């Protein structure tokens, strides 16, 4: 990633001609008529429908046109901004907003590829649950207002009660279960984000003291810390679906496998996704979710604006709208999307809170109490190294 910093240093600095995020009236005025190209992963029909709805709403209310650029990989959008910076394209990027977190955010922030700070000046920031949810750090990296949160995610395991009677409490239990039921579990192939999340989840759960993961990985502690992970995976892999010779490309690609009865257990990063998929005929009605006894990894999804976006005002309008009780309640509705809200219920008016209270979280969704407190993400350096090592160990072996 050090090359990013280098380019950033070489490229000419840009004058900020954009409207000051603090002057919201001016932002609203400038945004009218702008088109915002939102680069976001396009593999989930529910998310795509939600983004289309956001587009209709900001068009009606603010005259902002939202175009969803459906990515197969968020890194594509990062690369795009990077190529533009190299080519001196400093004022009208193809990208106006990115659904981002983790390593991609860290890379863009470090290379000065982002617009901001703007997030904490948004009017709806006052409603955000700053104390209760990890919305000001992203995989331990401070956000510094350079990205605005819009959804909470937490690892849950989806299981088919037709085949598994009891939830499992730890990664060890899951390992024992796969030994008894070979071929019925798998995870997406890293570097897919859910795949790497699974690896981190294993590591966090089997380490006696996971606190070492909150600081940057060093050559000194990396090998010893991750040794139990590789040991675990060596035992797990032969009992995976297809003996680990092939992996699903993404998390949602495991839904049809559960439907077909190829899998009994899978991992998901969205507590409400299973209920949404049941409503959408993508999962059997017997699917439920569970979290581990020690808790599971959770993080926030953010939106960020590239430094060279030509529609920063429009992008801020969308980011602010995403934080509105209306959008957040819709996102949490498992029949539509099923994402966790980033808002603080106590900061809402009674009428807005009623929108959330009225939600039926869905047959397979755990209550906030059952979900428990999310375990913090490790520092991104762990994920980068683990993903590389995983590829060398399991991703190229025949």
């Amino acid at each position, binding site marked *: *990633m050090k090359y990013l910093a280098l380019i950033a240093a070489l490229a000419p600095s840009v004058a900020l001609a954009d409207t000051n995020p603090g002057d919201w009236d001016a932002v609203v005025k400038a945004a009218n008529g702008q088109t915002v190209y939102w680069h976001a992963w396009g593999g989930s*029909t529910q998310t795509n429908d939600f983004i289309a709805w956001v587009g209709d709403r900001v068009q009606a209310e603010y005259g902002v046109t939202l175009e969803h650029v459906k990515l197969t990989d968020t890194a594509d959008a990062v690369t795009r901004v990077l190529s533009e910076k190299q080519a001196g394209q400093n004022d009208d990027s193809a990208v106006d907003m990115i659904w981002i977190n983790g390593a991609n955010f860290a890379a863009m922030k470090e290379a000065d590829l982002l617009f901001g700070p703007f997030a904490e000046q948004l009017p709806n920031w006052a409603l955000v649950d700053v104390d209760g949810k990890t919305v000001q750090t992203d995989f331990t990296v401070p956000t510094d207002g350079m990205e605005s949160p819009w959804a909470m995610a937490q690892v849950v395991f989806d299981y088919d009660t037709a085949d598994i009677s009891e939830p499992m409490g730890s990664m060890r239990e899951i390992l024992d279960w796969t030994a008894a039921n*070979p071929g019925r579990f798998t995870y997406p192939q890293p570097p897919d984000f859910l795949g790497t999340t699974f690896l981190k989840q294993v590591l966090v759960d089997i380490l006696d003291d996971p606190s070492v993961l909150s600081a940057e990985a060093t050559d000194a502690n990396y090998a010893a810390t991750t040794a139990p992970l590789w040991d675990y995976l060596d035992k797990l892999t032969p009992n995976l679906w297809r003996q680990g*010779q*092939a992996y699903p490309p993404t998390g949602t690609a495991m839904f049809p496998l559960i439907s077909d009865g190829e899998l009994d257990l899978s991992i998901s990063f969205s507590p409400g996704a299973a209920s949404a998929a049941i409503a959408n005929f993508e999962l*059997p009605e017997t699917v439920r979710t569970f979290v581990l006894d020690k808790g599971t990894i959770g993080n926030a999804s953010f939106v960020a604006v590239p430094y060279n976006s030509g529609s920063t005002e429009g992008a801020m309008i969308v980011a602010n709208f995403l934080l509105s009780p209306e959008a957040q309640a819709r996102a949490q509705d498992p029949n539509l999307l099923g994402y966790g809200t980033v808002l603080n219920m106590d900061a809402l008016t009674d009428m807005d809170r009623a929108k959330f209270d009225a939600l039926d979280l869905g047959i397979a969704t755990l209550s906030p109490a059952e979900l428990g407190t999310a375990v913090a993400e490790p520092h991104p350096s762990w994920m980068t190294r683990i993903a590389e090592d995983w590829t060398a160990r399991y991703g190229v072996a025949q």
Partner: protein
Amino acid sequence: MKRRLLPALPTLTILAMLGPVAAGLYWKILPAFGHFPAAGAYGPNLDAFRAIFAWPGFSEAAWLSIRTGLIATSISLMIVVLLTAGWSGTRAFRVLERALSPLLSVPHAAAAFGLAFLIAPSGWIARLISPWLTGWEQPLDLLIIRDPLCITLALGLIIKEVPFLLLMTIAALSQSDAHRKMAVAQALGYGRITGWVKVVFPSVYAQIRLPVYVVLAYAMTVVDVALILGPTTPPPLSVQIVNWMSDPDLMLRLQGASAALIQLILVIAALGFWRMVEALAARLGRIWIQKGTRGQNDTIIRNAALVLGVTTASAVFLGILILTLWSFAGFWSFPNATPDAFTLRNWQRHGPGVSDAVWETAIIALTAAVIALVLTIGCLEAEHRYHLKMGKGGVWLLYLPLLIPQVAFLPGLQTLFINMGAAMGRGPVILAHLIFVLPYVYLSLADPFRAWDARMGTIATALRATPDGVLWRVRLPMLLRPILTALAVGIAVSVGQYLPTLLIGGGRVTTLTTEALAIASGGDRRAIGVYGLMQTFAALVPFTLAILIPALIWRNRRGLRHG
């Protein structure tokens, strides 16, 4: 058409096709050798190559690419040869020919989705025979899709390449004097297949050699089909190149550039190997011909060939049928052969997205195909008027963009466009599509255009028509059907383009194909059904029109209906 412009058109056409390829390659070679000043990398050095050779999956990924190419090409060619040898001239062959022609237009990705839905362990074939025959209540844990031997990937390519090679072979047959040769061979007591392979095949193969090379190069470097059916641990080299090219770490882009050069060298090496096998086969073939064996097992081979041909065609047809089923499916559990419930909801959900993509796809495809058609007609007319005959080298030039792997020059072309400030949007995408649309339009129109009876022109000239008048009022109307067919071919090629749209469009241009592949990564079969089906329609409708329109316009001109 201005008189001064016409003689320049062939050069312009060659430029439109080869210019971008050459520029793209050039912009790729510098970073491949570590020279990428924008990224703070100053070469030349071999660091990126070293990094690739150090990647543990490299040799396997390269092998996958070579293996897939050779398997898919040789099996497709074998099916086509046996089918033509055993059945050409019969009714069964005409039926098959008619069934296969529309399949040519089915986009590769849609055919691949259909195949996956068909042969997966939980696919339709397994559902049809379960549980009453097999006893499977759960699908078997079998590695069929994404198998590390690439057999499924090769199959996915074969079902699309057989129609292509078959139509090329049929076109070549008419110039091979096949009928009389076969009559002589059969009079001498040769079996149908043995006789055909011995006396007709050599001259046919000489004509379809370039299409065969195109199939080989394509199968080695395909990205979209490999994303759907190919292995991932590791993926074939072409997929890995795309992964590297889209990584936020710039060092990996250098690696992608170097790997693309290696891919190019692999393709050239494979073509060289194929050429050697050709020479060997020719030598052995001559000995075999001289032995004078008449062919013992011809009937068995002949029937086997028909089974293979029918299987190929039905794999695509059934695949599209399954796509249709999924697009209307409610919940659909294993092992039920039909959905547990039907619903219109999938179409309602995806309707708006589909219709946006349909427009974008149509605009791009039509523009690219029309430009290609104008250039092609211009070239052919210039050839006719000024006798600018394209030599053997010219035909090679025409095929060159199809022989050079897309991943080898498209990322370089993308860099070029960004540097020119034409970073995104429809225009550059249309230009990029034109590179691939032009050769197919030219190949499709050239023969009928040249075969036009020139005496018609002489008569028209005698009636005081100018050369332009002959072209516009006599030749083009008479060639309406082949012209519309060429247009439909161009549209189908454009509809199927994935990598050029993705890389050159910068994500802002969403066609049915890019949309279908983006959605495919999420595995929502109902969405894949909707998009795959629409993609197929987008390519099929122009073909249907190309048949219907001339039939309507020339309904009282029987001689013109077949061009």
